[in-house]
């Protein structure tokens, strides 16, 4: 069974139910039930019309649930009078769902979970596994999120930036459990890009493709991080890079620069360098300057300082780093890197060890500890302190 096909149909099916008068929360539950049933039944008995099958089953689930509900609340008649199933014009329900699931009244974690379920068609169990929380916890998070947006009308246009933030969060979660969230984020962003003519949507899609292209080279088989400069570039996915670059060029041609396009441009410049030594750092610094104008983010300032270190030498990089807020994550690691390039290995080792203690994930902590270990061992062998 093609699970991607199944998931791709999800938002459309949900849209049909909502247009037939089901409220969003109940419709979403019904679609989820239908998906679970499809996963069970389709491998043995694949339907000829998958979407029609899902609509029929979801509608039946919805009616069943409503009847059970209305037996208590005496609302049965109203539900029974809803229009009968039939072909409905495909207005863009999917797009409305994206906006609803990323609604600003939701916390980022809730928006992510609701998007993955209602737009992405993942089951609660899959989402729970991907985020390493119990299934009951994830079910509660999703049902609270649905209550939060239950009063929001689906026909109001939303802010595409909120949707992009949610998709970006999903992408950065990467891979854990049996669902590849990075690939899922790309699928959802691609689906969005097909519906919205917005250069930042294209920019985010390009950014994801260009980073995803490096995935095989980013870690060793035992899970250790490999820094960009040391990655085996022959393992980068050239077709993903080509697509990312093409999408980015299309976006940049529109001349409405945004944060994601600028970040993608940096990634494209890295992708374009046959070796780390041939990286066009001068142009990368220019893109970070653009990014600073767009966002004024201290993280961008940090990345810019590292790029300046490559373009103009480590001392220039350290000078640029001095302007970056000391509380920015990874600042100490960047300082360690620049000090090593400047030849001060003892300071670099001390800073790497300090950065390891402040790391926010194990892979990074282990990587930084290895850097400190490498320098400390080398210092010891040279007979220096």
């Amino acid at each position: 069974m093609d699970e991607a096909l199944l998931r791709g149909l999800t938002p459309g099916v949900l849209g049909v139910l909502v247009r037939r008068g089901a409220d969003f929360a109940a419709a979403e539950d019904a679609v989820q039930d239908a998906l679970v049933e499809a996963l069970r039944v389709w491998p043995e008995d694949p339907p000829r019309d998958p979407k029609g099958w899902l609509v029929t089953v979801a509608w039946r689930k919805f009616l069943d649930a409503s009847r059970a509900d209305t037996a208590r609340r005496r609302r049965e008649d109203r539900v029974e009078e809803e229009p009968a199933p039939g072909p409905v014009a495909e207005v863009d329900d999917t797009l409305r769902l994206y906006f609803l699931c990323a609604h600003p009244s939701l916390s980022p974690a809730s928006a992510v979970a609701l998007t993955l379920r209602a737009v992405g068609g993942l089951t609660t169990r899959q989402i729970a596994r991907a985020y390493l929380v119990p299934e009951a916890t994830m079910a509660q998070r999703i049902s609270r999120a649905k209550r939060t947006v239950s009063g929001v009308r689906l026909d109001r246009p939303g802010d595409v930036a909120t949707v992009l933030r949610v998709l970006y969060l999903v992408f950065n979660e990467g891979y854990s459990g049996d669902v590849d969230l990075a690939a899922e984020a790309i699928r959802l962003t691609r689906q969005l890009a097909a519906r919205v003519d917005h250069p930042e949507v294209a920019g985010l899609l390009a950014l994801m493709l260009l980073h995803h292209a490096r995935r095989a080279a980013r870690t060793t088989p035992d899970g250790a991080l490999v820094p960009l400069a040391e990655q085996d570039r022959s393992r980068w996915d050239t077709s993903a890079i080509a697509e990312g670059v093409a999408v980015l060029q299309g976006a940049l041609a529109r001349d409405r620069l945004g944060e994601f396009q600028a970040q993608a441009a940096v990634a494209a410049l890295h992708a374009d360098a046959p070796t780390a030594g041939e990286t066009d750092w001068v142009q990368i610094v220019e893109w970070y300057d653009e990014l600073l104008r767009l966002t004024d983010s201290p993280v961008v300032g940090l990345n810019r300082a590292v790029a300046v270190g490559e373009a103009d030498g480590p001392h220039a990089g350290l000078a640029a780093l001095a302007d970056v807020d000391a509380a920015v994550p990874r600042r100490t690691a960047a300082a360690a890197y620049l000090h090593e390039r400047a030849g001060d290995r003892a300071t670099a080792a001390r800073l790497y060890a300090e950065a390891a203690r402040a790391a926010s994930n194990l892979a990074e902590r282990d990587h930084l500890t290895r850097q400190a270990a490498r320098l400390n061992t080398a210092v010891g062998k040279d007979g220096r302190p």
Partner: protein
Amino acid sequence: MGRTTPEERDTMAKYLLLKHYRGAPEAVNNVPMDRWTPEEVSAHIQYMNDFAAALEKTGEFVDGQALAPEGTWVRYDGEGRPPVTDGPFAEAKDLIAGWMVIDVDSYERAVELAGELSAAPGAGGRPIHEWLELRPFYGVAPTVTE
């Protein structure tokens, strides 16, 4: 009363293996990690991953997590007031580094596994002989008591 029922004997028991940054008795091979060679660091991480993977295969692994070294103390400060926070305390005597929860047949098996985990290689590729704290979970009260 006082007898162990067959149900209790046959039930798996959960144990918490606690690893400390500070507070445990001193390990035999006590060189800090950033003074090891990168290969020794890798060997150590590999050992820990292999250990967890092996426990998953035997059906004894429940959970394992590592904690960042710096934390905060928090307490209630009365109606309508935000909680008081304090720390981190650099001089704290006891600092948990992480845990592993195992579900095993017996106390003896739990001790055996803790010993194996404590043998993880450190500086010079030699075992660290780190002290790990082994704490039993409270079980559920048996349904059949007589």
